[in-house]
């Protein structure tokens, strides 16, 4: 039994320790594994007779998919992260700018005549997914997706569960709205508070993606940390978050809820909300699966930081708008 100390790079969060220890501990030639996040080292006990270089290489191949690298010598942090953030800020700003210009242009406000059929709901869903609703729902999807892809390998399954949960709950809750009618009113203050909460999560995740939080080694409050561990590792959580998006503040969603409400039947309400959720799917799926494919490419650091800038911008916007919606501060902008 020999004991080696290897240097690890790519650890950016508290859950990395658990993940690395899990993966390395599964190798049969490895005994005890201990990750020290502060020193960025991994202590491993091994029965293997191989040289320390070979072991480092072999173990790196196991955790490389998760973005970690082991080395014998400490890799001095290259200058690149600095450059990446300065590239990421203009890229993120350009995307934010395009998004808000799209809102201001008014092309999303074209009318759809007459009654709200499921086809019309689907088209409204398509429009909604590129509208200012995207500030909250899309920002949340982008930040959670990027965060999950950054930490986890099984991101595709998590995304599928999220989208499934979202569409299923829209259909179910839409049906209930149609069935019960006004018995369940959706409270404005409740949605606004939920929106504020979502915007705070976006700000937090966005800063995290930009590397602002990890650079200063601010450890997460344990509650939030546990929440994200659950997001990453449990099956139920993405389903619940998908479900919760029904209540997020979004004018389009609220209008469609109203239509479902006035449909007066379970089938009518369900069809309207199902078609609407289906309409929002292409853009949201693109956001989540797009971030997954970027996350596993060589542009990953630039992508995470640019996504961080976009998410922080949208989070700030949603936060200020949410406060204005609650009447706490006067409205700052009129898009």
């Amino acid at each position, binding site marked *: 039994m020999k004991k080696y100390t290897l240097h690890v790079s790519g650890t950016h969060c508290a859950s990395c320790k658990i993940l690395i220890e899990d993966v390395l501990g599964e190798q049969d030639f490895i005994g005890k594994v201990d990750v020290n996040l502060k020193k960025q080292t991994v202590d491993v006990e091994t029965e293997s007779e191989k040289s320390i270089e070979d072991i480092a290489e072999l173990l790196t191949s196991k955790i490389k998919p998760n973005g970690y690298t082991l080395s014998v010598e400490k890799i001095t942090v290259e200058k690149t992260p600095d450059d990446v953030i300065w590239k990421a800020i203009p890229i993120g700003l*350009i995307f934010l700018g395009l998004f*808000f210009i799209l809102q201001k242009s008014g092309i999303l406000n074209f009318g759809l005549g007459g009654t709200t059929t499921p086809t019309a709901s689907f088209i409204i869903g398509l429009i909604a997914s590129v509208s200012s609703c995207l500030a909250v729902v899309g920002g949340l999807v982008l930040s959670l997706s990027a965060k999950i892809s950054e930490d986890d390998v099984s991101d595709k399954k998590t995304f599928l569960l999220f989208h499934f949960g979202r569409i299923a709950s829209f259909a179910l809750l839409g049906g209930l709205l149609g069935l019960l009618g006004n018995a369940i009113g959706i409270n404005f203050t409740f949605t*606004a508070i939920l*929106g504020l909460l979502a915007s705070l999560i976006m700000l937090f995740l966005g800063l995290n993606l930009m590397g602002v939080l990890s650079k200063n080694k601010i450890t997460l409050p344990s509650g939030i940390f546990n929440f994200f561990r659950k997001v990453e590792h449990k099956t139920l959580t993405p389903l619940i978050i998908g479900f919760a998006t029904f209540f997020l503040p979004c*004018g389009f969603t609220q*209008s469609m809820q109203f239509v479902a409400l006035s449909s007066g039947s379970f089938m009518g309400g369900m069809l309207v909300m199902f078609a609407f959720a289906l309409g929002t799917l292409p853009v949201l799926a693109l956001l989540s699966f797009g971030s997954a494919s970027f996350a596993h490419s060589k542009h990953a650091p630039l992508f995470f930081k640019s996504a961080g800038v976009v998410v922080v911008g949208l989070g700030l916007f949603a936060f200020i708008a949410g406060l204005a919606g609650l009447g706490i501060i*006067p409205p700052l902008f009129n898009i």
Partner: protein
Amino acid sequence: MNKIALIILSIALVIVFAIIFSGGSKKQIISVNNVEIKDGIQYIRIDAKGGYSPAVTLAKAGIPTKLLVQTNNTFDCSAALVVRDADFQGILPQNAETEIDLGIKQAGEKVEGVCGMGMYNFEINFEV
């Protein structure tokens, strides 16, 4: 790429966006004839679709006032209207005129309406 050039680009972008959006949010009093007094009641018309129009309305103080919000295939945020001063919050029907009673306002009072997400708003100023 050069880091300094990128920093300058970032700052330039922020300034450009600030000009675009602050310029847009500056409320101009457009003289739209949306106030009408009929049978001693003042009616104020606001269109709700992709925002509220007109954004600023001048109304007369001291007479009973009603707000008429007109939707026209409105599915966006402006359909989720909150008028705190009138204790009104609700989803407007997609194609209808909704009447909201504002009561009698004094000169200098202001009524503000905002959509549920807080991104669109309008205000009505009461004058003598």
